[in-house]
């Protein structure tokens, strides 16, 4: 398969903060590629550089063979972007927002009209085309933004947190759109998200990013298989004792995390009674037990030793300290 995006040693610093740290990878044509990580991991910085909005400190990248620094307009013509924050003109109608975009990208009038109708149909907003965007719900705005991003037929579409702040039903709906788009239009889609389920459901491949570095890159299936079998989570007042007690050969890995012991093993259903008996005989208290198939959350935890939520909390503290240092 042809390479759509080639990224080599891409780095971006903000003063002493390294937001993107020497990242290299390729994205194939037609792929849905996910950048997964907590808020502040460097996903948006990454996207900003690829879409020519931000200059890299060092390293390089090409989109369809076009260098992001040497030919900004060339890159801009071949990409579509849906920003994390809304970027519609709320005083204009859906049609006018589309039309404005079409004119900016110099699409001839007749083709422009035809495409706008086609795309508004695709995102099911055709019947609302003459309504002012101010009256639209969050999900409708997002759909309109995606339609707008596709108007100039980009070969690469960037979606920055496409379902942030949307209700579950709308999110589901949007995922279907995105999947259909990639399949029918054959465009490459890069999305950033901090929702594990979103990445899992949509992406062909995922790069897990933390502190500006890629800590894992593979298909969701391979990432989860890497955990090995199933995950058993035992909540207890003494999780350390559980880690010490479980030394059976069929246990792949056992780690203490806060007040839980997290155990990776094959065929958890068969072994669960053995585990319970073992812990009972050693008088280790058990508050609750849960068995589940590994999720990307487990993958993230196994690579970073933290859940994505804890990582976000840490990041916020860091940012605050950083700001304080800058201020004083």
């Amino acid at each position, binding site marked *: 398969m042809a390479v759509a995006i080639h990224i080599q040693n891409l780095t971006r610093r903000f003063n002493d903060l390294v937001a993107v740290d020497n990242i290299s990878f390729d994205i194939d044509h037609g792929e849905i590629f996910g950048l997964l990580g907590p808020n502040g991991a460097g996903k948006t910085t990454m996207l900003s550089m690829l879409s020519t909005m931000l200059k890299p400190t060092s390293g390089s990248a090409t989109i369809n063979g076009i260098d992001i620094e040497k030919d900004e307009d060339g890159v*801009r013509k071949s990409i579509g972007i849906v920003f994390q924050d*809304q970027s*519609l*003109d709320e*005083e*204009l109608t859906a049609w*006018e927002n589309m039309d*404005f975009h079409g004119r*900016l*990208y110099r699409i001839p009038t007749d083709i422009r009209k035809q495409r706008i109708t086609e795309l508004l149909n695709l995102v099911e907003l055709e019947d609302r085309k003459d309504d002012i965007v101010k009256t639209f719900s969050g999900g409708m705005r997002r759909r309109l933004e995606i339609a707008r991003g596709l108007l100039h037929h980009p070969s690469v579409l960037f979606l920055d947190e496409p379902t942030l702040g949307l209700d579950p039903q709308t999110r589901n709906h949007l995922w279907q759109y995105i999947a259909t788009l990639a399949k029918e239009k054959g465009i490459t889609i890069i999305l950033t998200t901090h929702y594990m389920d979103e990445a899992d459901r949509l992406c062909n491949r995922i790069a897990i990013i933390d502190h500006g570095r890629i800590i894992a890159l593979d298909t969701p299936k391979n990432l989860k298989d890497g955990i090995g079998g199933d995950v058993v989570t035992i909540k207890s007042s003494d999780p350390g004792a559980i880690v010490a007690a479980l030394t059976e050969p069929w246990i792949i890995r056992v780690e203490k995390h806060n007040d839980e012991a997290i155990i990776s093993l094959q065929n958890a259903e068969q072994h669960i009674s053995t585990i319970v008996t073992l812990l009972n005989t050693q008088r280790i208290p058990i508050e609750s037990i849960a068995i589940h198939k590994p999720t990307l959350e487990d993958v993230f935890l196994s690579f970073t030793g933290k859940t994505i939520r804890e990582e976000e909390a840490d990041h916020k503290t860091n940012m605050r300290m950083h700001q304080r240092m800058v201020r004083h």
Partner: protein
Amino acid sequence: MDIIYTIWLRNMKRYIRSKSRIIGSISMPLFFLLFLGFGLNSVVQLPGLGGNYIVFLIPGMVAMSVLFTSVFSGIQIIWDKQFGFLKETLVAPVSRLEIMLGQTLGGATTAVLQGFMILVLSVFIGLHISSLTGFLIAFMFMALIGISFTAFGIAIASRMEDMTGFQLIMNFVVFPIFGLSGALFPISSLPAWMGPVTLLDPLTYGVEGIRYGLTGVSQVNPLVCFAVIGGFALVMTVLGGFLFRKIKF
């Protein structure tokens, strides 16, 4: 050209839909015109300027309308920044200069339309437009004021993060520009030390130009007016274009 037109078109669409803004920004100069005009008409003597204070005031109020609308139109870019729409424009494969020029022309057009409304209303309180040439001259000066101060607003907006500084700019920059311009009084009647100050104010030349077009008399030679306000429009456009280019996403 097509990009400039696109940006201009958006400005027009937004303008036509903002009924409250249209009415809001003609009300202030209109009230000034009515209260000051009728209030002071019988008190104020204007030697050598036709003697009628209302007719003297009308060009000033037209200029005021254009001034405030255009500064406001330029500063509106901050809203586009805050509501995210600016990103959509900046990431398109078009030059920043085209965007800035489109915005300037859009703002200038709305400002001229606002000034035109005052002009039309003025006909009912004593303005006689004697010749088409005079009207076109006034129109041209309105356009130059509009371009100058929209570009000025864009220049300021390019350096501002949010609207918190807006009131400060209005009170300490725009209002003095208006007050010193001779929109309200003849500059020749000022104390000797104050005359030169009004001649440093670019709006003075705009007001005098409009006054020449509408009433046929002005205290500054209309050609000088044209050169100064025309030059000022050019300088502001270059400055606005320069600062707008440096806006970060």
